């Protein structure tokens, strides 16, 4: 079973996301929660890190935490990043989940690893 990695700190005050992705296994899931969702914001500097991980790991964003911070799924980092810039239907870089989706991820992955 693949692991689920939880990132709860902003990239501005913690390198948790980057440090997690350096160790995450192929097929693992990464979920941005709490201040971790700031990695999805324009100008966070995490766009490249997230794009590089696309395809190797699945990256999810907890939407209630994103919306609570006034961010939305339309932020440039959240837009689809196509392999080799080839449309038409590139895999999205980040996948939105609600609380139900969060619970499903914890049920379908093991172990759960918190990075902060």
């Amino acid at each position, binding site marked *: 079973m693949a692991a689920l990695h939880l990132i709860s700190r902003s990239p501005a005050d913690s390198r948790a996301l980057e440090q997690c992705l350096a160790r*995450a*296994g192929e097929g693992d899931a990464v979920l941005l929660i709490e201040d971790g969702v700031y990695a999805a914001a324009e100008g966070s500097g995490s766009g490249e890190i997230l794009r590089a991980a696309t395809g190797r790991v699945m990256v999810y964003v907890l939407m209630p935490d994103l919306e609570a911070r006034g961010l939305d799924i339309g932020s440039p980092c959240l837009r689809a990043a196509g392999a080799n810039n080839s449309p038409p239907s590139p895999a999205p870089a980040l996948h939105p989940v609600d609380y139900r989706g969060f619970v499903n991820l914890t049920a379908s992955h093991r*172990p759960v690893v*918190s990075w902060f």
Partner: protein
Amino acid sequence: MGKKFLFILRRSPQQGARVRETLDMLLTVAAFDQPVMLLFLDDGVYQIKRGQSPESVGLPAVAPTFEALALYDVEAVLVERESLAERGLTESDLVIPAEAIARAEIAALVADQDVVVTG
């Protein structure tokens, strides 16, 4: 048949009660005969660096805590080789013996666990 536990320390010493609490959890799990491993990652490797003297600035000693690990049945004490190298450290700079493993081996180690606790 117990669950397999991995405790990961990746913060520098003197982060308040965090490390103490993580170690308490580790020792409790070990006392219940569950298979336990401990991994030092990132700044966590500074926890077991030789030659610290936090007492001189009024902070609690950290390293002696880890020497007590030998009394408990901790299956393996691991340290990531890259985390040491990035900080100019080698295994000989550590107060306790730790087995160095490569960054590329971490994913498989994590995948093999039932429970991972980070502190």
